């Protein structure tokens, strides 16, 4: 087990946390290899014209060591594969670096991801990869929660066309709400097209959310549902103003994230009837919603409400 008391517990940006490799105090054979996670990075220090690579903190907070692989080298292959499914980017890059020490047969290598976060140790260890279940706690650590591949996001539909629906990403589910967007920062909710921020347009198909600037996304018609992808009619799935739960497919191009709703639990969660003028509707099956008092039925690609 890693003796984390050897390393600082509370850090400020720029503080040294650990070298990239370290040897266990008691057992020479155990080598710890540290990898930068959120809130840490590798930097070079030059001391006496010799370069040393070390891990430093980039956030203010508490240091956590998360073991990447629980067992020794034998089962390492399987384990890491499984992990990589969930968290892709960092570890691929590191894979190369890992190769070298693995050759040394009699040493046991333990890999740790070093994380700096605002919370103290025990408070934060909840599974961050929950896909469907809901967390009650909202993680307000905003900056490190930009939408990334695989994230579930909640969006508002801003405009639709035959091929795609354009949306604004409001929140990454179970994560932060960006404080700096919203009516508060961009002036009063209603403003005219001319002058000023002019974020609001009068076209019904372009109902903007008055939310300042948000990350934009696009749901292409073939990403709306998993079956009969070619016969999707966007107008029967979304209407401007709907709140949609989507999954991020990719970072997309310069303007848009690519999103999908091709899962049961993805789709419209909130919609109002009659193009936003009516009342809140409820899903009765996966493609129909009903307004409770007026009994208006409308077509949507609904998210499973349970």
């Amino acid at each position, binding site marked *: 087990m890693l003796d984390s008391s050897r390393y600082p517990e509370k850090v400020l940006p720029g503080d040294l946390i650990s070298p990239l490799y370290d040897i266990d105090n008691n057992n020479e054979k155990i080598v710890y290899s540290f990898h930068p996670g959120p809130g840490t990075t590798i930097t070079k220090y030059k001391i006496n014209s010799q370069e040393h690579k070390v891990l430093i903190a980039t956030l203010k907070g508490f240091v956590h060591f998360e073991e990447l692989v629980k067992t020794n080298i034998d089962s390492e292959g399987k384990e890491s594969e499984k992990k990589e499914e969930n968290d892709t980017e960092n570890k691929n890059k590191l894979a190369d670096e890992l190769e070298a020490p693995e050759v040394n047969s009699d040493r046991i290598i333990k890999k740790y991801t070093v994380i700096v976060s605002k919370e103290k140790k025990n408070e934060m260890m909840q599974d961050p990869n929950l896909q*469907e*279940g809901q967390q009650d706690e909202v993680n307000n650590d905003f900056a490190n929660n930009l939408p990334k591949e695989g994230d579930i996001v*909640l969006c508002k539909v801003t405009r639709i066309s035959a091929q795609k629906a354009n949306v604004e990403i409001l929140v990454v589910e*179970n994560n932060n*709400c960006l404080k700096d967007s919203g009516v508060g920062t961009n*002036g009063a909710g209603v403003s005219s097209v001319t002058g000023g921020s002019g974020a609001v347009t009068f076209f019904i198909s372009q109902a903007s959310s008055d939310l300042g600037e948000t990350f934009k996304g696009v749901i292409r018609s073939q990403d709306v549902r998993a079956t009969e992808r070619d016969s999707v009619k966007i107008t029967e799935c979304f209407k401007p103003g709907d*709140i949609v739960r989507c999954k991020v497919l990719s970072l997309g191009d310069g303007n848009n994230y690519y999103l999908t709703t091709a899962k049961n639990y993805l789709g419209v969660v909130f919609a109002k009837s009659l193009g936003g003028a009516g009342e809140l509707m409820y899903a009765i099956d996966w493609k129909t919603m009903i307004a409770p008092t007026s009994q208006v039925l409308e077509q949507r690609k609904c998210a499973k*409400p349970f």
Partner: protein
Amino acid sequence: MNTQEKQNTITTNQPISFPPEVLARIAPDISLQRHLQLGLRPCLRKFEEFREYRTTDGELSNKNNPCVLGSNISRLGEMFVITTITGGIIEENMPVTEIDTVKDEIPDFEENTKGEVGFASVYPIVQVERGRVGAPTDEEMIVSQKLCESILNSQLITNNSLSINSIGIRNAETQEIVYDSQKEQNERKLLNNRKWSYVLYSKQQVFSRNSPIFELCLNSLVLALKTVKLPRAYIDERAIDLKIPIRTRGRSANIRESYDLNFDINERVPLTLNIANIGFASNFGVIKVENSNEDPILLADLESEAEESSILSRISIISTPTNKGSATTNFKSIYMAASGDNVPMHLLKRALEISCERTNDLYKKLSK
């Protein structure tokens, strides 16, 4: 996919739910209704409760910034505004006639007979800090205009209080400035009976905007105006005789006044305001709670995105405090837009009542 299935079995029985912060972001109107149904507001205040108002006067108008004639920092909950007032002068286009000289000699005469004196305003620029640069937003423009009109209509500043009635003369040798009304009468002749008056500008920077800003801006502006001290103007003794119109270089072809008025950094006169007309503003919203057959409810001092974007029926009231002398309150301005739910009579009355209370409360607090 193991985990996936596990998730499904766990969650099948519970409906989809969102944490309050997320719901407030994705569906502010629903979030607001849920709160109101519980008898709460999203900001956790009571329906008719205002946020705390804190203020600091005149801190930014010090020796180091002589250009700042008056200032105020007002804080309403988390939102705050920094108001600074600067000045300019303008030469009044007054024909040099005999009537003017008569008026000058008998100043009382003018006020008594005329009765009605013109009123002046300030020229405000409102900036909401929002992480953007560039042209002002609609809100900023609208609020600036409203502030300008409100100050004018509340008859707070008379034209007289802004006009420069006496001009000092700086002795060329001793650099001393003399404000001598006797001597000045004579000099006035030398100055060809030209008249100047001050123009007031204000700059208001709103930080942490989380609610409508007009009321806070107005209150802060009024308080800042109370602190304004106008620097006295003087003229160089030598310059009095000089009468060369200077053409300013460049594109503007204006002829600058030949008298170079200077301002005395040490000698300042407080701006006289019509104290009786000082009014404070408060705002209200009216909204109907869904799933209840009751009348709409009145919310004081709107705050947060949810309230602002879903409550479209608004009332904004400027009222003067009840003074010792006059027991009645004067309403300086009432603005109502029922673009959302209808506003019933009793709520409007209630709003007026509350606004009086609020004004009196503010006045008491601020005059301490």
